[in-house]
């Protein structure tokens, strides 16, 4: 690709772009020393471990920890204004999510529920707020990480409660299914409970944020291109409209980000609940 790059369309540049579509690519925070050997790229450790996306995930984690420590510090029987938001959030996760879905054993899973919701939520907010303007979980590696952890959690507690064989039996043979159907049901249940669950969990989170960020890019970059690069006046009007609509898309993305954090948490509880349930 040799077309001259315009300032607004970094897609066409040869250099790795730093915004637009290029924002999906991690950039090392110190000058890269990567080199090509034939078709194989060799990265230095800073290219892999010290990138902008890793940094924003770390900052997100620090913010989550700081938020919860701040909220739990100096709690009183009568909550103060400062504690209100933390208690509200904690109440929601504790009572409406964990307790309602998990039943009487919910307290053991509260830390996991609180952590996963706040970590996903704050990283999703990064997509709409300055400094980062990029939702961390549209890098699929982070989403797979959390999906695997949830998979380990619900299988772990299931095996701990029922034993390996008991758990496998419970998860693969639903009650009341005729024996003749078992050859069909068992593979389906294995597929559904052990493969589809973690894959959809990770994919759902990733795809929502990835697509959301793409839509924002389309409206903002497309609007910018229509307004400043293309010639016809009608295009400039359409570009202005697209920029206005971008605000609505940002609002939508806020909703999607919060919703996906909630869904991830609820599904985690759901899977744990199905693994430890007495009957299913």
């Amino acid at each position, binding site marked *: 690709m040799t077309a001259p790059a315009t300032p607004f369309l970094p897609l066409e540049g040869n250099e790795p772009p730093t915004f637009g579509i290029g924002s*999906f690519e991690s950039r090392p925070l110190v000058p890269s020393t990567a080199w090509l050997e034939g078709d194989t790229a060799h990265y230095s450790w800073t290219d892999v471990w010290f990138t902008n996306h890793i940094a924003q995930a*770390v900052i997100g984690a620090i913010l989550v920890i700081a938020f919860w420590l701040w909220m739990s510090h100096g709690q009183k029987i009568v909550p103060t204004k400062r504690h209100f938001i933390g208690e509200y959030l904690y109440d929601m996760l504790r009572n409406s999510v964990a307790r309602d879905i998990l039943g009487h054993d919910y307290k053991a899973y509260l830390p996991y529920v609180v952590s996963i919701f706040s970590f996903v939520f704050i990283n999703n907010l990064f997509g709409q707020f300055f400094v980062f303007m990029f939702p961390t979980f549209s890098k*699929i590696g982070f*989403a797979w990480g959390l999906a695997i952890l949830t998979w380990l959690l619900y299988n772990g507690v299931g095996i701990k409660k029922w034993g390996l064989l008991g758990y496998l039996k419970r998860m693969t043979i639903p009650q009341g299914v005729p024996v003749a159907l078992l050859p069909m049901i068992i593979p389906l249940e294995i597929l559904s409970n052990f493969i589809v669950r973690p894959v959809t969990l990770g994919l759902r989170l990733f795809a929502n944020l990835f697509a959301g960020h793409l839509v924002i890019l389309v409206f903002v970059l497309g609007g910018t291109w229509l307004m400043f690069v293309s010639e016809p006046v009608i295009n400039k009007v359409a570009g202005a409209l697209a920029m206005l609509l971008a605000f609505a898309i940002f609002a939508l993305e806020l909703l999607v980000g919060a919703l996906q954090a909630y869904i991830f948490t609820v599904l985690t509880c759901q899977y744990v609940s199905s693994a430890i349930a007495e009957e299913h």
Partner: protein
Amino acid sequence: MTLLEGTGPLGPLLPEHPSEFIVGIVLFLIILAVVTKKVVPTFEATYAARADAIRGGIERADKAQAEAQAALEQYRHQLSEAKDEASKIREDAKNSAAQVQAEMRATAAAEASRIVHAGHAQVDAERAAARESLRRDVGGLATTLAEKIVGEALTDDARTQRTIDRFIADLDAAPQQV
């Protein structure tokens, strides 16, 4: 080559670098550790304290109410006792007043009758004394008179005495001439 063009058959569905995957897991585990150790216990402790405070408040209120009820009962009891006592005292006072009156009346009556008796006795004694002295005087006068008339000394006392007694008896037989 951008990420969207794909680095392999799975395109953007594989992590660009495995570091994302590992860092994501490690960060989450750190958060989980802090939340498990610090945050959830603190929140749960506050909740427990809050529930305790509310329950304790209700208990305290119940206790206070029971105490107030007991005190009220006690006051009512004391009040009715006091009323009873007052009416008893009033009754006693009435009774003792009547008794005192009766005693005084009895004493007065006794005194009156004693005075009357004493008067009667005095009158009787005076009358007896008067009769005695009269008898003696009359006897002496009569004897003296008779001596003068008879002219002889009536020395025989026994005879004299008999004469006097006969005389007196005659006088008694005809009292209207005395």
